[in-house]
C-alpha cells in the first residue's frame, strides 16, 4: 500500500498529470494533449495525403468514364441517391467520388510542389539580398515591390495565355506566387540575425559565411519560414483552384478540385453536390493546414517549451 503510494508520488513528480492511456501518452509526446483542433487537423491532413497517394486503389470508376443514362444522380445521403455512386454523378454521368480522388491528387501535388518552389526561391533571394546589401538588395527588393503591386492572378493569366498551358508551367506559375513574401521575411530576419551577438561571436571565431548561414542563421529563421509556408500552402491550392475554375488551370482529361468546382458551378442549383463536395474538401484542407501551421510555430521555438 505504502509502496504503491510512493510509486504514484514519484510518477506524479515526473509527469504532472494523471495517468493517461496509450493514445494519451502518444498525444503528450507530440505535444498534442488538449490540442483537439490540431489533432483533428493533423488527422484530416493525413487522411487527405493518404487519399492523394493511394486513393486510386479505391477509386470505384475511372474518373473519365461517362454514363449518360445516369447524369446528375444525387449522392447516397440525398433523396434518390444510390450506393452505386456514393457521391453522385456529374453532368456527364461521371462518378464524383472518383473525380474527387483524382482531383485531390493533382491539387495536393500542385500545392506542395508550388509551395516548395516559392519558399526555396523566395528565401534564397531574401538571404542573398540581406547578405550582399547594396545594389543587389535594391534590385531584389524592387522586384519584390513589382510583384506585390501586380495582382498575381493577372500575372498568372498573362503567363498561361502567352506561354501556353501545361502542368509544369502551371506548377511553376503557382509556385512563383508568394515568393516575395518569403523574400521579404527571409531578408528582414537575416538582417536581424546578422546583428545578433551570436552571429558576431561565431564570425569572430573565424567561421565562414556559408557555415554561419547553414548552422546559425538558417536554423533560427527556419521556423518562421515553415510557418509562412503553411500559411502560403492553402493560398497556392486556392490559386490553382481559381485558375482551374477560370479555365486556365488544369485541362481535361486531367482534373483538380478547382476544376471540378468550376464546372459544378453551372449546376449549383440543380446538382449542388458537384461543387459543394470539392469546395468542402478544399475548405477543410486549407483550414487544417493553417491550424497546424500555427501549432508548428509554437513547437519550433525552443524558448517556448
Amino acid at each position: 500500500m505504502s509502496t504503491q503510494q510512493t510509486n504514484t508520488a514519484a510518477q506524479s513528480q515526473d509527469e504532472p498529470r494523471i495517468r493517461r492511456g496509450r493514445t494519451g501518452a502518444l498525444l503528450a509526446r507530440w505535444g498534442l494533449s488538449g490540442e483537439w483542433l490540431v489533432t483533428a487537423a493533423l488527422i484530416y491532413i493525413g487522411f487527405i495525403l493518404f487519399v492523394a497517394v493511394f486513393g486510386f486503389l479505391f477509386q470505384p470508376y475511372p474518373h473519365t468514364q461517362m454514363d449518360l443514362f445516369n447524369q446528375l444522380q444525387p449522392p447516397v445521403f440525398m433523396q434518390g441517391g444510390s450506393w452505386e455512386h456514393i457521391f453522385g454523378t456529374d453532368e456527364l454521368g461521371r462518378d464524383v467520388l472518383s473525380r474527387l480522388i483524382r482531383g485531390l491528387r493533382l491539387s495536393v501535388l500542385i500545392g506542395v510542389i508550388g509551395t516548395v518552389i516559392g519558399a526555396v526561391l523566395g528565401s534564397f533571394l531574401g538571404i542573398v539580398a540581406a547578405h550582399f546589401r547594396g545594389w543587389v538588395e535594391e534590385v531584389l527588393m524592387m522586384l519584390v515591390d513589382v510583384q506585390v503591386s501586380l495582382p498575381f492572378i493577372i500575372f498568372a493569366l498573362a503567363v498561361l495565355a502567352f506561354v501556353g498551358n501545361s502542368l509544369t508551367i502551371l506548377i511553376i506559375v503557382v509556385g512563383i506566387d508568394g515568393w516575395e513574401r518569403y523574400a521579404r521575411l527571409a531578408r528582414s530576419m537575416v538582417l536581424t540575425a546578422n546583428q545578433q551577438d551570436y552571429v558576431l561571436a561565431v564570425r569572430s571565431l573565424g567561421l565562414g559565411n556559408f557555415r554561419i548561414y547553414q548552422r546559425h542563421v538558417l536554423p533560427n529563421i527556419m521556423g518562421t519560414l515553415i510557418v509562412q509556408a503553411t500559411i502560403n500552402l492553402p493560398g497556392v491550392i486556392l490559386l490553382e483552384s481559381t485558375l482551374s475554375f477560370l479555365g486556365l488551370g488544369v485541362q481535361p482529361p486531367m482534373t483538380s478540385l478547382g476544376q471540378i468546382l468550376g464546372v459544378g458551378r453551372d449546376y449549383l442549383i440543380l446538382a449542388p453536390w458537384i461543387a459543394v463536395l470539392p469546395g468542402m474538401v478544399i475548405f477543410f484542407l486549407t483550414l487544417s493546414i493553417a491550424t497546424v501551421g500555427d501549432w508548428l510555430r509554437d513547437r519550433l521555438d525552443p524558448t517556448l517549451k
Partner: protein
Amino acid sequence: MNKPANIKPDVLMEVRDLVCHFPVKRDGLFGKRRVAHAVNGVSLDLIAGETLGLVGKCGCGKSTLGLLVLNLISPTSGSVLFRGQDITRTNKKEWRRLRSEMQLAFQNPLGALNPRRTIGAQIREPLDIHQLGDPADRHKTVLDMLEAVTLPEHLLERYPHQLSGGQQQRAVIARALIIGPQLLVCDESVSALDVSVQAQVVNLLADLQKKLGLSYLFISHDLSVVRHISSRIAVMYLGRLVELADSEMLIENPMHPYTRALISAVPVPDPRARTSRATIGGEPPNPFNPPSGCAFYSRCPHADDKCRSLIPEFRQIGPQHMVACHHAEALAQTS
C-alpha cells in the same frame, strides 16, 4: 622626468592613431553625407598578461575600439600591431589564424549564444572551426574548459535559455577561451549581471588570467568593477583617450577634469560619507560634429580660450601617466 614609456615590457598589442569614422545617412535628400567620429585617434599599448580597463560613457567609442582591436571592423586609418604585426591589413588566411589569438566576450551572454544549439555544441564549436584535435580530444578539451570556468558538466546538453545569467556568461567565456587566445576583449561582460554574479565572473576572469597568462581589454562604464580587475585604466571621451594610468594612480590622483567627474560619480557605500563631488553638467557633444578644440571644453569648469581652439595632445605627465589636458599640471596642484 624619466621616460618609462620607452622601456617596454612585452607589448602584446600596440594601437597607433586609430581612427574609425562611420558614414551615416545624409541630411535630407541632397544634404551633406554625415560622418560619425566613433574613434578619433587613439594610441595605446597592451602589455602581455595585464588587464587594461577602458572606461567611458555610452557612445564614447569604447565598444568600437574593442571591435577595431579585434579587427572585426576595419579602421578608417591608423594601425593595430599584434606582436609587431599589423593586423588591420591581413589577408583572409592570416585573419582566420588571428581569430585563435584574440577573442571577444559579450555584454549580453544570452544574445551571444545561439538559442537553438546546446551549450556543449557551442563551446566546442571553435575547436571544430579550427580543426583542433580529433573528436575525442575536443570533447575532453570541452570538459577541461568547463571545469576551468566552473560550470557543471550536466549543462552541456542544455539550451542557453535554461541557464542562469552567470552560467551563460561563463559559457561565453569558455567558448572564447577554448582555442587558447592571448587576448580577450571583454565588452561590458559583467554589466548585465547581478552584483554578486558580477563578482564571481570578475574573480573567474582574474583566476583564468593567472592560470593562462591572458591579457584583457576590459571595456566597461562601471569604474568600480574596472578598478577591481585592471592594472591600468584608460578613460575615453568622445572617441579620444583623455587619461591613461595605473589604476590606483588614476583613482587616487586623476588629472583630467573628466576623469575626476567620473570618479566622484562612483557611489560610495557609506551613507554618511560627504564627498565634494566634481559634477559636470550638460551632455557630451555630438559625435557627428565634434568641437574644434578639446572635446570636453563645453562642459569643463577649467576651460579657457586655448581649450576652445587647440586639441590637447595626449602626453606623458608622470610615470606611467598620460593625459590629454592643457591644464593638467595646474590642476594637479589645485587638488
